[in-house]
């Protein structure tokens, strides 16, 4: 039962990563791509961490995985802000 749930969560995470990658490749501009990527990073990694935590069967490992997810959330969000900000600054400055 737990093994099945673990696989299910990991597959769900992989689907989010796939969708995010397709979005990165297909969407027209930086903001749309960021939107697609952050969804993939946050939710996809979240699901995979959940699946791996169930699979590990240990509170210590689950805690570490949770920390990794939180750190990735922080870094992803900040990087997203920085990229979007630099694009905005370039648009206002260069008019392109």
């Amino acid at each position: 039962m737990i093994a099945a749930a673990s696989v299910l969560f990991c597959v769900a995470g992989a689907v989010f990563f796939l969708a995010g990658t397709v979005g990165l490749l297909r969407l027209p501009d930086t903001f749309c791509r960021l939107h697609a990527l952050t969804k993939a990073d946050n939710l996809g990694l979240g699901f995979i961490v959940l699946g791996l935590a169930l699979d590990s069967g240990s509170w210590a490992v689950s805690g570490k995985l949770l920390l990794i997810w939180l750190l990735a959330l922080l870094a992803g969000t900040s990087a997203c802000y920085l990229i979007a900000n630099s694009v905005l600054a370039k648009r206002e400055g260069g008019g392109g």
Partner: protein
Amino acid sequence: MSAAVFFDLLLAVTLVAVAWRVLHAPGTFEAVVVFITLGLLMAIAWARLSAPDIALAEAAVGAGLTGVLLLDTLRALHPGAGDKEPVVRHHPSWAASVAAAVLAGVLVLALLGIPRDAPGLTERVVEELPRSGVSQPVTAVLLNFRSYDTWLELGVLLIAVVAVLSLRAGTGLTGVPPGGAGAPLLWLVRLLVPMVVLVGGYLLWLGKSAAGGAFQAGVLLGAAGVLLWLAGQRPVPREWQWRLLLALGFAAFLGIGGVLMAGGRLLFEYPPELAGTLILLIETGAAVSIGATMAALFIGLHFRTGEISTGGADDT
């Protein structure tokens, strides 16, 4: 075919494909980004080869620091080019291709020449491990059995950073980058740096019993330094503080070796009961110096772009 073999094959094919892509990327920016990807994939390959310490070093140096240095160099070469960079087609050079093919052939021959299942020096290391002061064979070799090698490696790092700083024009390491960092970046840096230092200390301590040690810890400290500097955090170390930080690892080795020789032992012939402590001391100094070297390489090269406010000037 088991899942593990399938994954390894996929990884191997991807590595070659990505390496090809680095050489044939449409622009230098793409090439750098794909090179960083290559470093991360290499780290996974090392992890699959059960070499977690090399995987850590590859991820931190190969993908992280080298990537940052390359991106920074790119910015210095094409200021303001952004993504509108001219596309340059590179035609493969025949001489380089032949040389690479010959080198690859020699490497394959050397690989085939290694006797299978030969234990090498593994048994000697395991035999002497109890007297080395640590329980991790890699650390025992690097910091005890072959500490002379490691000492000289730190010397090479020191010479490299001295060379880079000598080539740098004008200002020193004591300025800050222009323009303040935005609030989110500052917030992230303030949150991340203590955590990075904590993990660095943990890796340093871990080195005596598991994968970890001075190099991994040092690279983390270096990354923390680069983050702090980019976010415009003060105080930036003064000139003499930089010198101290950069030379600490080499000096720790030299000092301990000198004391041992004065006591009638050979250079780096640690007394077994003190070996653990001495190794931890040397590794601490080495980690600080490696971190300072990484940060100084970045900051030193950054200054060459010539758009840096100097010393005491305010950055806002």
